């Protein structure tokens, strides 16, 4: 997905935005590798949309500097033509069809009109392109917004909550869509309140909270607050199972009827097999044996302290 030797698509430092005394974004430095799919995560009001708006030149930073697609952040006119974005929700003229709205944006940005049909097809609106935008469902509006973001074949695509208000099927469609957008080597920056969605598509993460940066880097290097475990249970033999695993040299902790075995540096699959084999040899039948992974949500929640990451 990523691993580029090219300059970062986005490299900004000290990004700050204040409205009067209220600091919305506080000294955030963001680096987005070219070709990566980067998730922008943070609780509601963390400043995600403001960060994206500053990258797009819609909001003027109070301070901060850097480059977007090799151009000075302070001169968005120089690079915004190569950035496609869906930010703060889709915004189109309700009395025009989806296709007519795209055509209007093509005129506005001097894009290639031949892109319209393939983009409508890509976002699954080929059959509904001539319907009035005002008659679209929320999911269809989001998809049209993504199509609009892809006009002009941008190098950097910024999607702000693209799954907002979309049903589970629509979320899956948009997840696939984000993957397809990235397939052309584009850099994608996406924020979502559904961390599980980002877990499936992103390779980099930027985590912000209360306007400040909490983490940025590869997703698999996101700090894990607590160690991962294998949960084991055996009907009516919880104590025996716990004692057995401890005697076997494993770091096991009894939690009611369940025993949790620390994975540490071990291979979880091999460790699970070992536990199963040990229990079987001792005549204990396991009723539960699974690797309890930390989800992205768990890890982000630990990072930002409390509240719901979104």
């Amino acid at each position, binding site marked *: *997905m990523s*691993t*580029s030797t*090219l*300059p*970062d*698509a986005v490299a900004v430092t000290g990004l700050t935005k204040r409205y009067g005394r209220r600091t919305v974004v506080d000294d955030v430095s963001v680096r987005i590798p*070219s*070709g990566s*799919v980067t998730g922008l995560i943070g609780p509601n009001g963390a400043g995600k949309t403001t960060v994206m*708006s500053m990258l*797009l*030149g*819609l*909001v*003027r930073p109070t301070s901060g500097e850097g480059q977007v*697609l*090799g*151009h000075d952040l302070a001169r*968005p*006119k*120089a*690079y*915004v*033509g*190569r*950035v*496609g*974005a869906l*930010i*703060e*929700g*889709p*915004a*189109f*003229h309700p*009395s*025009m069809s989806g296709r*007519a709205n795209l*055509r*209007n*944006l093509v*005129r*506005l*940005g*001097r*894009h290639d009109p031949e892109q319209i049909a393939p983009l409508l097809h890509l976002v699954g609106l080929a059959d509904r392109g001539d319907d009035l935008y005002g008659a679209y469902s929320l999911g269809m509006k989001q998809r049209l917004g993504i199509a*609009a*973001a892809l*006009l*002009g074949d941008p*190098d950097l695509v910024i999607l702000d909550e693209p799954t907002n208000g979309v049903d589970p099927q629509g979320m899956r469609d948009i997840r696939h869509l984000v*993957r397809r957008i*990235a*397939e*052309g*080597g*584009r*850099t994608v920056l996406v924020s979502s309140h559904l961390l599980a969605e980002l877990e499936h598509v992103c*390779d980099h993460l930027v985590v912000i909270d209360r306007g400040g940066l909490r983490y940025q880097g590869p997703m698999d290097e996101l700090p894990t607050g607590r160690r991962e475990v294998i949960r084991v249970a055996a009907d009516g033999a919880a104590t025996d199972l716990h004692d057995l695993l401890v005697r076997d040299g494993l770091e096991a902790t009894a939690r009611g009827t369940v025993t949790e075995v620390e994975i540490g540096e071990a291979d979880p699959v091999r460790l699970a097999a070992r536990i199963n084999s040990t229990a079987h040899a001792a005549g204990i039948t396991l009723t539960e044996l699974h690797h309890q992974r930390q989800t992205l949500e768990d890890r982000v929640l630990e990072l930002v302290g409390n509240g719901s990451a979104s």
Partner: protein
Amino acid sequence: MTTATRPAETTGTDRRLRGGAFLAEWTRLGQRRVWLPAIATTVLYAAVVTFALIATAQDRGPGVTISALSQSGGGTLAPSSAARFASVLLLAVFVGLSAGAFSKGTWRAALLHHPGRFGLAVGTFLARIAGLAVIVALLFVVGWATAAVVGPSQGVDTSAWTDAASWQSAAEDFLRVLGFGVGWALLGTAVGMATRSVPVGLAVAVLWAGPIENVLGDSFAFGQRWFPGLLLRYVVAPDSLGISLSNAELYGTLAAYGVVLLGVIAFLVGRRDVTS
């Protein structure tokens, strides 16, 4: 997911960013859903108001009279005067267009494809003014035709309406009405951009153009001299002028207001964050 990555260098960015705002807005206004009601309203308005002005015209005196209508250029006198009653409508339309673009997010969406804010604002405004010019032209055509049909039955002599002086007068009337429209358009655009809310913008606009301009302004010499709506009214209806004001003073004041409004709009376009 992919191994290929795109170069971060730019190519032809400026070319891509150039222009398009006028064409996009002009095309949007060219939708049947927009122009059909606009044309129907204009035709109805021009016919009804012209008819009313001629039917109620006195033989002599200031404004639209049988005597004035019977002179060279009389054919466009009534539609020209009819425009004065459209001030609040014009203001409301332009407040709605500019504030609506902010509240609906279409200004933000447009900026993502045309990041040159001034170019976008100027192109969009010019397209709206071009649309206004079409509407004004239609107002004159329908008004003239209505006057030609109704006038003779009211004692208006239309024999001088097609001489060269009449066409020159028609062109002047057209430009004065267009100037009147551009003035209200600038006011409406500034109010819409400042408030960024259609209901708030309309409330401010109607309050100003209604009671403040017409009740307060008309009642005081200061208002008659300085209130922009009244000055614009004098442009299309000089007979409504209740104080002594030369053309130089009238157009000089309006030009100054125009510069101030352009400055306000430029500031709002260029400096304010786009957060909706």
